[in-house]
Structure formats: C-alpha cells, structure tokens
C-alpha cells in the first residue's frame, strides 16, 4: 500500500512540476509578445488565448501538489480541541477528507462531461487559432483525479499517524 501511495504522490509532484512549467511558458510567451509588439509593431495573436488555457491547466494540475504540501486553506479551530477530544478531532478530520474526496469526484465527473461535450462536438475557440477546446479541457479531469487520490492518501496517512500514536 505504502509503495502505491508513494507512487501516486510522485505522480502528483510531477503534475505540480508540469503546472510550474505552464506558468514559466506563459511568462515567456507574454514577454515575447511585449517584445514583438514594442520592437516590431506586430502581434502573435495567440498569447492572450493560450495564456488563459495555461492558467486553467496549471491551476488544475497543481491542486493535488498543493494538497500534498497542505497548502490549501482551512479554518483550524477544531485543532485547538485536539488535546481534550482527540477522537472527536480525528473523526472530524476524517469526515473532512471524505467530503473533500466526494467534492473531487464530483468535480471529476463535471469536468469529464465538459471535456467530453467539447470533444464530440469538436468545439473550437472563437480566436484566430481556432484551437480544439477539448485539448486544454482534457487536463481538468486529470487534475481532479489527482486531487482525489491526494485526499485519499492524506486520509490514510491520518489514520496511520493516529495508529502509531495510540
């Protein structure tokens, strides 16, 4: 089990790195567009559109990586009760992970349907590039699936941690 968890986590780290690459690529594209506009009085036409896609891709691919590092914000009132009512806090945290997994699964379903809809209708962007929208949209369900697994891993880790403490 641990081996599988490590494997899935390394996939999530990889997705986080791809998310980072998307941001760096966007930055380079934007700088190139500014230079092209300023020095050659010309435009690439696609920068604004592709920067938007890269933002969407990066935001979804990095969700699981951010969760791995516990970067997502939650209110921590319940943690103050951990010393007095450890079992209650453990149950509350487990419930949160289960709710978060349901959320990730629902998001996976919605984004998959959204992607599938664009794919079968061969929907294209209204911009000059006429990009097939299914291409950038394909990364959304991937990010949701990775997020689901990361929540699952963190839930299992929470149970293990408590077992070790007991």
């Amino acid at each position: 089990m641990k081996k599988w968890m490590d494997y899935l986590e390394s996939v999530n780290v990889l997705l986080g790195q791809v998310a980072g690459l998307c941001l760096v690529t966007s930055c380079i594209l934007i700088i190139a567009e500014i230079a092209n506009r300023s020095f050659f009085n010309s435009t690439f036409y696609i920068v604004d559109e592709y920067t938007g896609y890269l933002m969407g891709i990066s935001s979804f691919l990095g969700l699981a990586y951010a969760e791995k590092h516990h970067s997502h914000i939650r209110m921590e009132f319940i943690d103050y009760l951990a010393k007095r009512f450890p079992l209650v806090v453990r149950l509350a945290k487990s419930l949160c992970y289960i709710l978060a997994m349901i959320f990730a699964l629902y998001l996976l379903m919605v984004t998959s349907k959204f992607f599938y809809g664009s794919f079968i209708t061969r929907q294209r962007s209204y911009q000059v590039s006429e990009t097939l929208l299914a291409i950038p949209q394909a990364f959304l369900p991937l990010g949701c699936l990775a997020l689901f697994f990361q929540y699952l891993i963190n839930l299992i880790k929470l149970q293990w941690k408590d077992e070790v403490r007991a």
Partner: protein
Amino acid sequence: MLPVALGVIILLLAGTLALGLWVGVSLFYVGGISLMTFTSLPVERILGSVIWNNTSSSTLMALPLFIMMGEMLVKTRLSEDLFDGLSPWMARLPGGLLHVNVVACALFAAITGSVNATTATVGKITIPEFEKRGYSDALSIGSLTASGTLGILIPPSMPMLIYGVVAQVSIGKLFMAGIVPGIGLMLLFSLYIAVVSLLDRKKESLEVPHFTWGQRLRSLPKILPVAALIVFVLGSIYTGWATPTEAAAIGVFGATFLAIVTGCLNWKIFWDCVKGTVRTNCMIMLILIGASFFSVALGFLGLPKYISQSILALGAGKYAIIALITLVYLFLGCLIDGYSMIVMTVPIFLPLITALGLDPIWFGIFVVILVQIANITPPIGFNLFLVTGICKHKIGFISKAVFPFIAMMVAFAFLMTFFPKVVLFLPNMM
C-alpha cells in the same frame, strides 16, 4: 423562501468551516446544496462553465506571475540593501531607524506583494538591530507587524487581484487606487512613531548613528533596483503600455534579472520559486473556484439583491451601513483569512455598495484595508504568529503592540469613506 435560504447558507458555511473543511470545498458544497435545494437549475452544467470560465482567463495569470516575482525577490539580497539604503535617510527623524521598518516594508511589499515574506524578511534584519540599539520593543514590533501588511494595499496586491476577479472591476484601476491610501497609511504609521518617540523619555539613551551627506548619496544605488522595479511595473500599467498580466511578466523578468545579477539565483532556487508559486496559486485558485460557484448560486437565488434591499429598507444612512459592514469584516477578520473573507462577502455586499452610490473600486480598497487589519487581529491574525518567530515576545505582547496601528487603520478606512476622492482620483485619471 429567501430568508430560509439565507439562514441555511449561513449555517452550512459556518458548520463546514468550523468542521475544518477547506474553504474552497466549503464554498462549493454550500453553493451546490443551495442550488439543488432552492432551484431546479442544472447544477452540473452551471458548474462546468463556471469552472472553465473562471480558470482559463489570461487576466488571472497576473496572480501566479506576481507571486513568482515575489518568490524570486525574497531570494535576493534586496531586504539587506533596503535597510542599508534607507537607514542614512531615516536615522535623524524622531523615532530614528524605526521608520526604516515602515518604509522598507512598504517598498519590499510593493514588489513582492506578500505580507508574510515582507514581515519575515524585513523583520529578521530590523528587529535584532533595534533590540541592539535600545529601541522600544512595543514600537518596533508593532510597526513591523502592521507595516508588513502594507503589501496588500500597495500594488501589485493579491487580494486586490482576487477582489477584481470576484467584483469584475478593472485590476489596473484597482492597483492605481491602492497607491495613495498605501502611501497615506505609511505616512500615518511614521507620524505615530515620530510622535510617540518625541513623547518617550528614554529617547536620550538611543544609539542614533550619524551619517554624512556623502554617505546618504552613496546609499541611494541600494534602493535603486527596488524603485526601478516599482516604477517599471506600475508605470507600465498606468501608461497603458502593459496590462496587469503583462506587467506581472515584466516583474518576473526584472526579478529574475536582479536575482542573477546579485548572484542569488541557481537552477535549484529558480525551481523552488516555481514550485512555491504553484502551491500558492493553486491554494488561491481552489478558493476562487469554490467562490465563483458560491457567487453564481447566490446570484441565481437572488440573495445579494434581497440583502441589499432589506438593509436599505431599514432606512439607515450610508455611513451607518459602512460602519455595520466594517464591524462584520472586523468580526470575520478574527476568524477567517483575508482571501476567504473577500470571496465570501464581496458578492453579498457589492450590490449594496453600488445601491448606496459608492464606487466598486473604492470598496475594493476599503475591503483590502479591512483584510490588512484581519492579518493582525488576534486570535488568528497570521502576521502575529509570524512575528512570534522573529522576536522573543509572546502573541499577547505583539497583539498589544499592534493595537494602536489597528486603530489607525480603522480611522484611515473611515477617512476614506468621507473623502473617497483620496482613492479614486488616480484611477479616474487613467
């Protein structure tokens, strides 16, 4: 039905947040449950387009790029240079080097846009220095904790970007609107330091370094990179040469250049910056996804209109309503973080503000100041915890030290209400 819906939403939100569910996930659940319970709309379809439209926006790219710029600059020697560059100019003022805290925080925050990075980086240099020189702990710690938050008022600012996206107002104009209040608040902090120092009897024992005019002039190049970056990033937006997203990319380029020139950058550090950016960006994006869905759900239910009409029907004046909103924010600031506060409250309060004839840009700056206060309000003000790691004092002492600064911020927010032109004259010139 609407009062019932409002009650259910408040209870669900409070319940899920208190349980410890992630803010973005909580907002998503509350939005989804409200839509499913009180309407017969196709939730899946709404959610699909909300997600795609709110994440695949080039305007939003400004957010990770400004974060990356800040991550990069924190790795440079900029904070040390700022201290060395500003000290000769501030030393002879009443309050001496304490003003360096305020000005260095304001400048550093202006380019990094991060409260945490500003407070931690500037504080690590100034606090030990002030202790060594015998400055009042309360004043040095209070000024650092409060000035660190200037980063979210002085552009580029992440909360402003979030507000701009949620309220759908021009981010460029919001950035410009933050400049004058940011400088105003900085001057107010400095004035307070000067007055308290003049009244303090111990001031004779302070070790005030003496600087010649030659030393002052020679210190200027140390402030130059920061000043150049601020002028370049904000100037490009103001003159219309670049959009906020393009200005952010220019900022990343400038920060990378500075880091290379100062010998502070290698591949590992660069990659760490990128990874740090991904984590912060995705943290904010999860909240934004949940908030967009929550906001759409509120809109379909007609709750913002209902709330604004109900409050207006009470017949309370503009200032009374602003005071009420301030109290709500101050209360929420004690419990939740700034980003969550913005995304949860703006969809509700903005229609009310517009109905009162107030400008959404003005309200953006007003909210950002209240978010600043939230950062330093006990029990969960994040900056308070951060400063405990820098100085030897406990959170109680820091909370007391920062209290006069909180009072000044509240007073300043009200001053802005009476004189909205302070905020609006610069964006109106664009």
